[in-house]
């Protein structure tokens, strides 16, 4: 069941202000036909504003919204043919599940039989084929969001807009529904914008992740790249855990951490020699070695947190008492008991410097 609607979306130079607060600043984003882009950021970063502007629910903004080459900035929300799923449960309480799913077709004057058939087809797609005659309050939260997804897709939308659809659900249902949304999105092939504050969710579901902060889109790239190759310090700090290690630039392309020389990320090459700052290194880019000696890279093991396949070890640097996190396979972590002295080794090929 693929849709005929395969549209490209371009948001160009969006700017939105609420009173004195800038919610969105020079926001540019392109979605290729069939692509799923997740906007990721803390609350208040403007990600939901961007989605609502695309939906037409927030107006009074600057910039262009181009769908298949046409600017739709002046088109009202109900004429945009967008499918939307909200964070809050939003099923119409007086309608049955199947009436909810068929609602978009009903307001488009599609006749009853066709409407019911299409609604039933979508209920099957979200795995609720036998629930058509129930009312919203007879469903669990996860089921309600599935129905909302079916309702959004029933109209064969130009773009599917998902505004934190999983945030109100408990962890297990969230993971399950997340994977299912991905499956359905691939199956129907609708261009999708997904807004979330949950990194794992964004990484798991998206073709590309857009990291937002203070109304600015900092980076938009495939999940692996956002994680492994963040475009700047803000992104690096926000996505995943990050250690801050004192570092000094020793040449145009290199810096020194704990006496080791490491390449500086290309984007930052050319910073003045002698400048100091904090090198950003992920916990899995560090490893530990038991040691007797004392050096700039020695530390004592403070705590171990068992996370299943991985264990996260917090170590306290002897030199300045700062705490670093190291993660490693749990089988290797057994030897590093609390209180033992260890030397830290760095495996990063190139790092960012937070000056």
């Amino acid at each position: 069941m693929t849709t005929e609607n395969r549209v490209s979306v371009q948001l160009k130079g969006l700017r939105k202000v609420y009173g004195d607060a800038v919610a969105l600043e020079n926001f540019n984003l392109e979605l290729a036909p069939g692509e799923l882009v997740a906007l990721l950021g803390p609350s208040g970063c403007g990600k939901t504003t961007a989605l609502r502007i695309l939906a037409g629910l927030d107006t009074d903004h600057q910039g262009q919204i181009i769908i298949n080459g046409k600017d739709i900035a002046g088109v009202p929300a109900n004429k945009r043919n967008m499918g939307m799923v909200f964070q809050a449960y939003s099923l119409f309480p007086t309608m049955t599940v199947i009436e909810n799913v068929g609602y978009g077709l009903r307001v488009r004057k599609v006749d009853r039989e066709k409407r019911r058939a299409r609604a039933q087809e979508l209920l099957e797609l979200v795995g609720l084929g036998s629930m058509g005659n129930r009312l919203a309050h007879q469903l669990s939260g996860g089921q309600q969001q599935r129905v909302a997804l079916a309702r959004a897709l029933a109209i064969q939308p130009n773009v599917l807009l998902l505004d934190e659809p999983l945030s109100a659900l408990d962890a297990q249902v969230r993971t399950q529904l997340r994977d299912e949304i991905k499956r359905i999105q691939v199956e129907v092939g609708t261009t999708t914008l997904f807004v979330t504050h949950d990194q794992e969710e964004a990484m798991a579901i998206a073709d590309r992740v857009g990291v937002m902060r203070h109304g600015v889109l900092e980076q938009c790239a495939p999940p692996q790249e956002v994680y492994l190759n963040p475009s700047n310090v803000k992104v690096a700090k926000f996505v995943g855990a990050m250690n801050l290690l004192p570092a000094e630039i020793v040449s145009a392309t290199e810096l020194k951490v704990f006496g080791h020389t490491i390449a500086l990320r290309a984007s930052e090459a050319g910073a003045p020699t002698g400048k100091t700052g904090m090198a950003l290194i992920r916990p899995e880019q560090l490893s530990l070695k038991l040691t007797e000696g004392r050096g700039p890279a020695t530390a004592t093991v403070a705590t171990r947190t068992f996370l299943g396949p991985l264990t996260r070890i917090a170590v306290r640097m002897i030199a300045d008492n700062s705490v670093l996190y190291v993660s490693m396979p749990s089988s290797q972590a057994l030897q590093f008991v609390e209180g033992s002295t260890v030397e830290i080794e760095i495996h990063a090929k190139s790092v960012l410097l937070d000056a």
Partner: protein
Amino acid sequence: MKRKLNYVNYLVLLVASAFFIFPIIAAAEFSLRANGATTHNFSNFQWAIQQDGFKTNLGVSFRLAILTAVAVLVLMVPTIVYLHLGGARWKRLIEFICLVPLVVPVISFALGVATAFPVFLQSTVYELSFLYVIISMPYTYRALDVGLSSIPLLTLVEASRASGASMRQTLLFVIVPTIRSAVNGAIFLAVALSLGEFTLAVILHWDTFPTWIANISQGHILAAIALSVLSLVGAWLVVLVFAILPKSFRTNKTQEAAA
């Protein structure tokens, strides 16, 4: 503590209900009296119904009631929805306007109408409907305001808009069904007020059911009471129809769906 509170609640409920119900029961009992209260039958009703003007005046009042109820819904529902959706800064003003009918004496109201209302409206009895809409505003506003406050209005409206519905479709298909009981309440208030309003009709020289009852009562007090009971029952019936109609549509639909 909680138990004591419950007890007080029930006591208040009981006293309040008695306050409302006793006069109605008394009126009903009174209206059934015959032969100097020795027996009870429907003779007062029969007599009243056979009087000249019963049908015409009852018809006028019922048409007024329905017109008023419709006008109240058309005027008040969209307005209060707007206030809830972002017109909050107007809320104080509209609330105040809706309370004004409570403090303006009906007599000065009628005078204002007689001097300022357009002539084409003053030439028909249905001008009363416009006035009943205004008089019922303090009550209908409350009923609808409470109803809309109890639902996640913004989310429902946005979900409906995103699905492609116009504001009119959203009102009809989503909002009104969701606040059904509040809408029924507003209808009941408008209907009851229109069926019972006396002062304005008299001052503006129109014959309605209540003014006709007043005329009748001069000759036959028990028949007048019988008619009052009848109009009360009538109001209940109108509301019942409003309340049941959409529900029976709905059952038919779901039965169809199941079949």
